[in-house]
């Protein structure tokens, strides 16, 4: 047995308190250095046992109670945090829903009554664009964002001509037309439709 081999074995024997086997004992008898190491290791094990027995402490009950309180607080706090986040999320959701609702209603009104966007500038001479509406003379302009309605009806040709709309009045019959009404239900614009306008409803 070499000193290197014996060292590994003697440390384990000293740690566990087992007696060295015959081979190790023989080596210890013949090697003073290993014998000395063997004594050192045994002393060390004894000291470790004393140290081990001396350390009997454990965490205090007060510390335990404090930790349990901290645990409660952390999880109650977590609950509050959860609700705060939940309320924030709900508020954001409500805002989004309101925006979507608003967009759909405004959007649809805007798409049906394009003239609304330019109602202020909707003059008789502009009638060619903006959906073909001709503004009613002396009517108040639409306020920005004002809701409008379009009513399809039949109007007297004379009356339309009186508004400056270029229309044939000879036969005197009424013609189909879209009337743009503001929120106050007063007409703001008129769009003359072809004679078959009622059959071409969008």
């Amino acid at each position, binding site marked *: 047995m070499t000193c290197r081999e014996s060292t590994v074995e003697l440390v384990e024997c000293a*740690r566990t308190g087992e007696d060295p086997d015959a081979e190790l004992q023989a080596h210890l008898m013949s090697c003073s250095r290993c014998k000395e190491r063997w004594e*050192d290791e045994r002393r*060390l094990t004894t000291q470790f046992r*004393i*140290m081990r027995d*001396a350390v009997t402490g454990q*965490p*205090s009950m007060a510390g335990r109670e404090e930790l349990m309180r901290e645990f*409660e607080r952390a999880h109650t706090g977590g609950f509050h945090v959860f609700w705060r986040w939940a309320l924030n999320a709900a508020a954001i959701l409500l805002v989004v829903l309101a925006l979507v609702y608003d967009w759909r209603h405004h959007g649809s009104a805007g798409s049906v009554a394009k003239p609304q966007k330019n109602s202020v500038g909707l003059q008789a001479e502009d009638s060619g664009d903006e959906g073909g509406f001709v503004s009613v003379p002396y009517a108040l302009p639409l306020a920005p964002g004002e809701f409008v309605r379009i009513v399809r009806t039949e109007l007297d040709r004379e009356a339309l001509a009186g508004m400056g709309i270029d229309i044939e009045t000879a036969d005197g019959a009424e013609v189909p037309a879209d009337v743009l009404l503001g929120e106050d239900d007063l007409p703001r614009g008129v769009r003359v439709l072809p004679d078959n306008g009622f059959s071409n409803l969008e």
Partner: protein
Amino acid sequence: MQRDGRMELSDEELYRRMRTGDRMAFAELYDRRGTPLHRYVQHISGSHSAAEEVTHEVFLRLIKQDSSFDDRRGSLEAYLYGIARNLVRVMRRHQMVEASAEPVAEDNILGDLIRNERTAALHAALRELPDVYRDAVILCDLEERSYEDAARLMACPVGTVRSRLHRARLLLAARLKPLAMSGVTAR
């Protein structure tokens, strides 16, 4: 009955439960790991008050929502020991452990052992060992953990634990030799 059920659960399962607010799971985890951790810190710091403080702090960190434990990276026990080691290191750096160890008679874990010069010398020598050697001694010789357990807690192979332990014992023996030669013996 329910407590018995909890006792069969792994640390990691208890941790998962405590994260959902299970107070009893946390209590079980603390009762299971608190005392060994406290002893371990006593050994590495040499101070009862430091052990109390560090053990408390370790579990406090576990409670916090941003606890960084990840069971894919190791066991919860190894995580707890790792935090404790780091906290003691920080305390040492700020001289907090030494300061608390100075009024030895009442506060030191070795308060009733300090009369034993050799034990005190051994403890001092232990504290001066490099961390990895000290851990090997504390876990294997003072906490009587198996090599496998120590390897798990130290995150290294079993062979490494064994060689560190042997090396550490050699260093400690060398440090204690003058005392042995002078004839100081344990009481």
